């Protein structure tokens, strides 16, 4: 079989039949282009919403409600769970505050103290403070103090002891300032050791690291934490974690509801897309099938001349299938152009945040669309064109 010859003949016949060919192409474009826009919208919208959720670690946070009594071992075990990205014990919130000031200014700011360690999702790319006298400053606190990375701060920790107000001071160096998106209130992110030291001081115990006097800690006294900071590894891990804590009779607060909403939006949009896509594709396949059937009837004489000249059955079938493929390729190209225009328009209309899309497709989506369109066209044309096998050369040649 001379494939190149059949390709060239099919193309020349296709061109000579330009008006009918254009109709076939338009019929396919009418199916493919809206499907691309619909899928692009679904993919872009859901993708952007999901990404927004994934970018915000607060969505993955699981917060224990009410006071608990957790050992360091229990929290360590939580941190080792595969569905947990980060878990760290918190000291009592009332004991975790500090009064900060720059040595050069009188401005004092009262901040929360939040424990941090390597892997803290709130920190992003910023390295955590691992030493006792190093801290990260939230942006609002940094602005109020006028502090920047590298500055040394004076920190005062106050307590009411035996009815008298007392305070201890130390110096802390700012290693970084966290952006506003990471944390919105006045705070320092410090090592657990610093928080434990401050809690000890407020409880009247001695703190050796700073040389603060007080009661000697008991030999086998295990520290009890009232809370912890915990982040699920993925969005999908939040709901199972909530169930896990519920089983432990531990009340937690999560954003599982928000995540479920996006997931159900994605699921429902997918369902709508596939229902429409199935109907449209069935219609398109029927149209290609009918047009191949009609083409074989219409071109009976020309096809029987080719048969007379000695073209094989396969070559004639290829002739019909190739013409459907030409329509398919043209329709896909036109649809891509139309989708491109629609994508620009939609993104212009609906996108507020740079990097997010209302409508978006990946290269592999284009490839799948192309292959699916060509595959369906070829299959439908082969089914419709199968009648060429039954064309007898003698029946059509009389009146050519």
């Amino acid at each position, binding site marked *: 079989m*001379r494939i190149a*010859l059949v390709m060239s*003949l099919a193309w*020349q*016949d296709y*061109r*000579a*039949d330009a008006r009918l060919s254009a109709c076939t192409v338009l019929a396919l474009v009418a199916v493919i282009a809206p499907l691309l826009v619909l899928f692009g919208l679904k993919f872009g919208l859901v993708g952007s919403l999901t990404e927004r959720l994934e970018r915000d670690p607060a969505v993955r946070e699981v917060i224990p409600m009410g006071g608990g009594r957790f050992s360091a071992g229990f929290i360590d075990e939580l941190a080792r769970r595969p569905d947990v990205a980060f878990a760290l014990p918190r000291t009592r919130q009332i004991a975790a505050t500090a009064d900060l000031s720059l040595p050069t200014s009188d401005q004092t700011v009262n901040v929360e103290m939040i424990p941090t360690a390597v892997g803290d999702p709130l920190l992003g790319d910023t390295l955590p403070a691992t030493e006792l006298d190093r801290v990260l400053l939230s942006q609002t606190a940094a602005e109020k103090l006028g502090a920047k990375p590298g500055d040394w701060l004076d920190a005062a920790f106050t307590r009411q002891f035996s009815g008298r107000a007392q305070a201890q001071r130390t110096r802390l160096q700012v290693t970084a300032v966290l952006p506003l998106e990471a944390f919105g209130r006045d705070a320092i992110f410090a090592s657990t050791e610093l928080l434990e030291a401050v809690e000890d001081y407020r409880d009247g115990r001695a703190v050796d690291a700073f040389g603060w006097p007080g009661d000697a800690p008991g030999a086998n006294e295990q520290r009890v934490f009232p809370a912890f900071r915990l982040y699920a590894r993925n969005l999908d891990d939040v709901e199972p974690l909530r169930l896990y804590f519920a089983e432990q009779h531990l009340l937690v607060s999560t954003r599982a509801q928000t995540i479920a909403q996006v997931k159900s939006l994605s699921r429902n949009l997918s369902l709508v897309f596939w229902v429409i896509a199935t109907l449209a594709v069935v219609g398109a396949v029927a149209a290609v099938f009918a047009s191949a059937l009609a083409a074989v009837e219409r071109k009976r004489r*020309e096809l029987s*001349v*080719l*048969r*007379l*000249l*000695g*073209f*094989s*059955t*396969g070559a004639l079938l290829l002739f019909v299938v190739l013409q459907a493929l030409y329509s398919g390729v043209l329709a896909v190209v036109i649809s891509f152009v139309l989708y491109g225009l629609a994508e620009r328009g939609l993104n212009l209309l609906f996108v507020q945040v740079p990097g997010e899309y209302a409508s978006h497709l990946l290269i592999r989506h284009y490839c799948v669309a192309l292959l699916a369109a060509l595959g369906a066209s070829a299959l439908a044309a082969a089914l419709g064109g199968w009648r060429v*096998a039954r064309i*007898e*050369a*003698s029946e059509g*040649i*009389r*009146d*050519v």
Partner: protein
Amino acid sequence: MLSLREVRKTRGEGSQRYSLVIPRLDLAAGRQLALVGPSGCGKSTLLDLLALVLSPEAAQRFDFVVDEGHVDVAGLWRDARQNRLAQLRSRQIGYVLQTGGLLGYLDVRSNIGLPRKLLGMSDDGTVERLAAQLEVAEQLGKKPQALSVGQRQRVSCARALAHNPQLLLADEPTAALDPLNALRVMQLLLGRVRAQGACCVIATHDESLAREAGLHSLRIACVQDKDGGVTATLEDER
């Protein structure tokens, strides 16, 4: 090259029945035959049988002798080996159809060159040479619709000869032409056939033209049978 014994073909039933019987026909290189007889007597049916596009319903012998040996054409039809028949047609046979049978979407050059392309033969100037000899050289770039009936007939002749077939079949190639042009086209065609050393069978209702062109005439005789059907029998040459 073709050897037929007791080959039959029947179409229709009852009073609509038409049967063609070929008791004996041997075609050899260099033979130039004319099939003559009234229209409707089955000249085209016989040509289609010879062109391997119509299946015989019974045959004592229907052999095609090619370089590789005998090919049992009746057997190929029986086994529905369409692609083998197509291959034989493309290599051995050139067929000039009554109405030209040109492909409207190809220009004259591509129409004439198509049988060569199908066989993968190189472009050695044959197309231009044939077009010049059949006086359609000026029309090479045109589509068939732009040609006169006579020009189309000559293009069709050129196409049938382009791949040097052993057997050239022509169905009323000059029917649409005035007598003067008819003789000229016939002579151009036969000149090429002679030069290529091929055998040709030309169906025509014009016996005088066939005689004038120097063709050996074979008659088809029609007989009305008792059931109302018609049986046409090819004259036995012996």
